[in-house]
């Protein structure tokens, strides 16, 4: 180790491949967030539903998503479903697992955000003659969105980092690509250091963009 010589050239030569991998990382994270958000809305409504069936479906989904390792879910999607003759690609396996988990976490975020708006805000809006749609459109949802915005950003960062588990099912995202490149060049340390920096830059850019958007969109109190 004392004699280890860093060779960066091989990493720079492979940089286009790393970038392609990084693009796949961002791609799967963004998609898993978008689909996750849609399902999370339904799960949050289910969790608040008076109908027992909806409540239990939502509850079981949320409990599994929040209390099992992401890796198990990816393995179950990739290897486990094979038992039923369903063969998913690495991308789809990782995507499905991330969607499943994102939906579970975000559902609780949404429910919390929704329930954190005081009931008196409804009364005040209604007393001004607003119907239900207007109450939600102008009063409830804008306030709720502020409260769930930063937890959503965190979930997005989590997705970016967790997509690196794709390495274990041979997905060609940033980690998988790094793994492949280092195994043929034996520049393990260099490749993983550069990949780590790339993850860092991606997540920082996401957080920076999120803050800029927040400052532009959310005026006044951000709770």
């Amino acid at each position: 180790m004392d004699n280890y010589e860093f060779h960066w050239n091989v990493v720079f030569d492979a940089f286009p491949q790393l970038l392609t991998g990084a693009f796949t990382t961002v791609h799967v994270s963004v998609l898993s967030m978008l689909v996750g958000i849609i399902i999370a809305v339904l799960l949050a409504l289910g969790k608040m539903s008076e109908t027992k069936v909806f409540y239990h479906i939502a509850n079981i989904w949320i409990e599994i998503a929040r209390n099992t390792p992401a890796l198990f879910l990816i393995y179950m999607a990739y290897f486990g479903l094979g038992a039923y003759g369903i063969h998913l690609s690495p991308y789809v396996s990782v995507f499905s697992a991330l969607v499943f988990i994102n939906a579970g976490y975000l559902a609780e975020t949404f429910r919390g955000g929704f329930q954190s708006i005081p009931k008196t805000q409804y009364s005040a809006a209604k007393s001004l003659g607003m119907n239900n749609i207007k109450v939600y459109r102008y009063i409830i949802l804008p306030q709720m969105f502020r409260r769930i915005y930063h937890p959503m950003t965190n979930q997005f960062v989590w997705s970016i980092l967790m997509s690196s588990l794709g390495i274990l099912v041979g997905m060609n995202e940033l980690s998988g690509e790094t793994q492949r490149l280092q195994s043929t060049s034996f520049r393990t340390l260099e490749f993983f250091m550069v990949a780590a920096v790339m993850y860092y830059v991606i997540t920082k850019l996401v957080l920076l963009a999120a803050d800029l958007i927040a400052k532009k969109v959310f005026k006044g109190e951000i709770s």
Partner: protein
Amino acid sequence: MIEIKGVHKSFGDLEVLKGIDLTVNRGEVVSIIGASGSGKSTLLYCINAIESINKGNIIVDGIDVHDKKTDINALRQNLGMVFQQWNSFPHLTVLENAALAPQVVKGFSKEKAEEIATKELKHVGLGDKLHEYPTKMSGGQQQRLAIARALAMEPPYMLFDEVTSALDPELVGEVLDTLRLLRDDGMTMICVTHEIAFAKEVSDKVAFFHEGLIEEIGTPQEVLDNPQKERTQQFLSKVL
């Protein structure tokens, strides 16, 4: 005119209003006093149908509030309401708070809504706060904002639900001053209040509520200075 006829209201097994009759004419200021839990606030919530009623009628300018066919959102535009907790909309500026409902409920243009809102905000003394956010303001200022926000809908009636109860003592005065201003403008008001001195000063009629019934009603002189009923006397001796 607001006519309240034989109104009963229960929450589960608890009957909060046990047959209330009350008439409020245009231009009148009616104060409702009484102990906590006597049904004062509930009556206000029933007048603008935030709460339903179990029996009786509430008629506002000839329209039955609790009739299924009544367009309640249209009716509420005539019944401005201010709550104990001011309920500013924290994501909107002071001006936006007051201009929102005229825009989205009445369909006024942004310019016209803001013009009305600005006028009302100046009226309650918030002319210099138009572009601030309410969360930065004191409770008294937020309560005046709530009043201006309701006034911006230009309602003929205003309902006030213990609007000074949640305020720090030094802020009560500015809100009461605003209510005096409205009284001088000739606004029809129903004030549920614990401020007996204020009720005496501004009211045409005072109603003393006891356990879901109007125990005594009359001019402030009758009810507050010479109460006939023992319960009114007991209540006043405790609060004065």
